[in-house]
Every structure is written in C-alpha cells, then in structure tokens.
C-alpha cells in the first residue's frame, strides 16, 4: 500500500536518512522502533510533507505522491484536541474542513464515540476529561478522516500503563475492524511487539533498518509469550548497543 524508496534527508550536512526503504502492506501494522533522535519523527515529517525530501520516492497504492498530506490520517503523542470545541465538535473537524455533510458525519462520530467507549461524553470539553478519554476522542477524529493509511507518532506515550493497555486494543481495532493500514512509531518495545505485524528496528542517523521481525500470529498477543520476551531482550540489547556507541 505505502512504499518508500531510497528516501534521503540531510540537515546541515548531517545525514538523517540515507536511501531509506519501507513498505506498509494493505491492512498491515508496521511499527518503527529506534533510539531517540534516530530520525523516526523526521521520517514522518517527510512523509507528511512538513519537511521536503531531498531524494527518494513515496508511493501510495502504486502511485507516486509528493507526500501523504491529505492522503493519510495522522495521530500524534499529544491528542491535539481544540480546547474551545466539545469532543463532538473536535471529532467533526475533518468533516468541517473537507466540507462533508455534517449531519451524516455526526451520526458516524456518534457511533464511533460509542464504539470507542466514550459514548455520553460528546458534549464535554477536552479540559473536563482524562488523558485517556482525550486520546480516544483523538482516535475518533482520526477515524473520521476516512483515509486507509494511518500514521501514529507515539500516540500512547503520554498515557499511564493501564490506559495505555486499553488503548492498545483500540489500535488493534483500527486495523481489524476498520481495515486501516497502520505505520506507527513507538519507544515502547513491548507495545511494538503486541501490536506489530512487522517490526522494524532502526539505527542511529543515518537511519537504516537494523532488524526486521515479521509476526504472523493472532492478536491480541500475550506479553509473557517467551518468544516475545526473547525478541524484546534482543531488541533492547541492540538499542542499548546503539546508544553506547553514540555515547562513545
């Protein structure tokens, strides 16, 4: 579905990405994990057109595109709900911007509020609810985009462990029930192992794929699965090695 070929980007003659390649299959869940500052967020900036690419191609459904702006839904670490709008109005933001039918969109949003467990809170203001509920509302807004590809930039990293766990199952719902293709950045190796169909472990700049793990088993997975624990230890040791090299 999404294909990135030979993507390169320099900042002040420091190479952040060099011939970086990536593929996200249709209805796949690809997770990127790497040391801090390795260029993961820059990759998203390049994909979304916030920062222009130096070289390389981005293709969506086999068609070359300059960036994924207006083609992919995007959810970040911060929920980015507008404090002056109610949760419902925040969810209707994509409809208001694209000029979609508001009544139809409201019905759709209402169903999503129920499905994501925040039914009854539609008229609350963002400042009146918890971080987890805000992130659920951000997820409703993301789903209101009607875009097949969803980019998730550490969407759960600001949440506590329990809320995080419940929202992880909602991310799986994005893939299974809403048939979205997902590309996610995370710092949490356990989260990556629980969600990914494909896990890409990245290196420090220039960012490359150090390791690639493919998972075919059913989700939700069990974090105490010995295989996952083994991979987790291995990935952590690789990331640690990378950080040590950087320090030296």
């Amino acid at each position, binding site marked *: 579905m999404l294909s990135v070929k030979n993507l390169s980007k320099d900042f002040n003659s420091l190479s952040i990405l060099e011939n970086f390649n990536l593929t996200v299959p249709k209805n796949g869940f690809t997770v990127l994990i790497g040391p801090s500052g390795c260029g993961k967020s820059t990759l998203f900036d390049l994909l979304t057109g916030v920062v222009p690419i130096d070289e390389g191609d981005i293709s969506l459904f086999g068609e070359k595109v300059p960036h994924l702006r207006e083609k992919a839904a995007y959810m970040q670490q*911060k929920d980015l709900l507008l*404090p002056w709008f109610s949760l419902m109005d925040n969810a209707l933001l994509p409809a208001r911007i694209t000029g979609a039918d508001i009544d139809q969109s409201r019905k759709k949003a209402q169903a999503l509020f129920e499905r994501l467990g925040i039914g009854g809170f539609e008229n609350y*203001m963002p400042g009146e609810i918890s971080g987890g509920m805000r992130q659920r509302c951000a997820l409703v807004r993301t789903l209101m985009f009607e875009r097949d590809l969803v980019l998730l930039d550490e969407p759960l990293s600001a949440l506590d462990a329990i809320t995080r766990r419940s929202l992880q199952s909602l991310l799986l719902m994005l893939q299974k029930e809403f048939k979205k293709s997902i590309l996610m950045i995370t710092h949490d190796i356990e989260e990556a192992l629980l969600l990914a169909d494909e896990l890409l472990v990245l290196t420090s700049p220039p960012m490359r794929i150090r390791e690639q793990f493919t998972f075919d088993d059913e989700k939700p997975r069990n974090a105490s699965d010995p295989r996952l624990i083994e991979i987790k230890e291995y990935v952590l040791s690789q990331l640690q090695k990378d950080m040590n090299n950087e320090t030296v």
Partner: protein
Amino acid sequence: MKRSSLIAFFAALFILALWEVLCKSLNIPDFILPAPVSILKVAIFRAPLILPHAGITALEILTGILISLAVAVPLSMVMFAYPSVEKAVAPFLVASQAVPVFAIAPLLVVWLGYGIASKVFMAAVIIFFPITVNLLEGFKSCDREYRILFQLMGARFFKTMRLLYWPWALPHFFAGLRVGVSVATIGAVIGEWVGAQKGLGYLMIQANARLKVDMVFAAILWLSVMGMTLWVFVGFLEKRVIKWK
C-alpha cells in the same frame, strides 16, 4: 470579595481619607486641591452638566474602538498570512506609536475639524496598536503541531483561521483590547483639549480656566469611571467568549 480586592479597596479608602484630612486640617483652598468629598459632591450634583459632555467623550471612544477593530483585525490577519506585508507595515506601525499623540492632535483638528472626527481618529490611533500587535502575536503563538494537524487535514487558510488561529489568538486579542480601551480615553481627551466644543476634555479646560478645580477633578472622576467600565466590560466579554480557559 477576594482578599486582593479588599486590600485594594481599603488602600484606596485610606488614601482618600488621608487626602480629606490633609485638605481640611491644612485649610487647602478648593481652587488648589479640593477634598475628595467636595469632588464627589460636584461629580454627583453637577451630573446634569457633566453627563452630556461625558456622553460625547464616550461616543468618541466607542467609535474609535470600533474603527480600530475594523482596521486592526483584518490587518493582523493579512500580516500573518503574508509576512512580507508585516515587514512592510511594521515600521509604519511603530512610527505611529513613536510620534506622541499630543504632537499630531493640532494637525488632526486642522484636517478633521473641531467635531468628533478628530477625537475619534486620535482614540482609534491609540487603540489600534495594542490590538494589532497582540492579535498578530496571538496568531503566531499557535503551536506548530496544531498547524501541522490542520495542514494534514487539508485545511485552507480561511478555515484554519476560523477554526484554529482565531480562537487560539482570542486571549491575546482581549489582552490587547483591554490595554486599548484603558488608554482610549487619552486620545479622545487630548483631542478635546486641543479643539472642541463638547466633551469631558473641553469641560476640564473650561473649568480649569475658571479655577473650578473641583469640576476638573469631577470630570477626571467620570473619565475614570468610563475607563473602568470599559475595562470591566471587556473582561466580562472575555469570560463569556473564552469559556475554555
């Protein structure tokens, strides 16, 4: 009443009481410094004389506020949308504030006449700057992440302005408006000093010439009441509009 308000109230009361006592005990004549009670009496009992003048000054100030809003809001938006316009206009904006309004007041009276136009213009010039600068800074202060979100949603400038930048900048706008309305009286009164036939500034000049200092103070009192009313009204409006803060 809040503790801070109580402190302010008693501090004001103390100063007024001290002023009253000093005037009485030192036998200071009214044409030098009238006591607060005398001023209050003039302000209340001569209200039929003062209020028509206050009405004119209020009209000048309110019209000045409306005109400055009509210019400042669109100009801030244009300067935000086109930074080159901001660069071109900024020196003129600064210059408009660097030149004291006292200096241009006689010219404005010559150009716009002795009617309310010159006073309205002066009030507008004074109010215009804080509103424009604050609103522009408000637009600029919008978080990058929100801007990116709107870009990714495919929002064009006017939709982003309506849904994001304008609500984001509202607290800045109201801060500018508060400053603006609190200094608006200066512009109107200076205009009336230079050349007018009505207004509190005119009344002050006339009273001063006749050594009716209590009337001068009464006019100042009414002017203060007008300024404070505007300040409180803007605060009330701010609370009604910005409910999420």
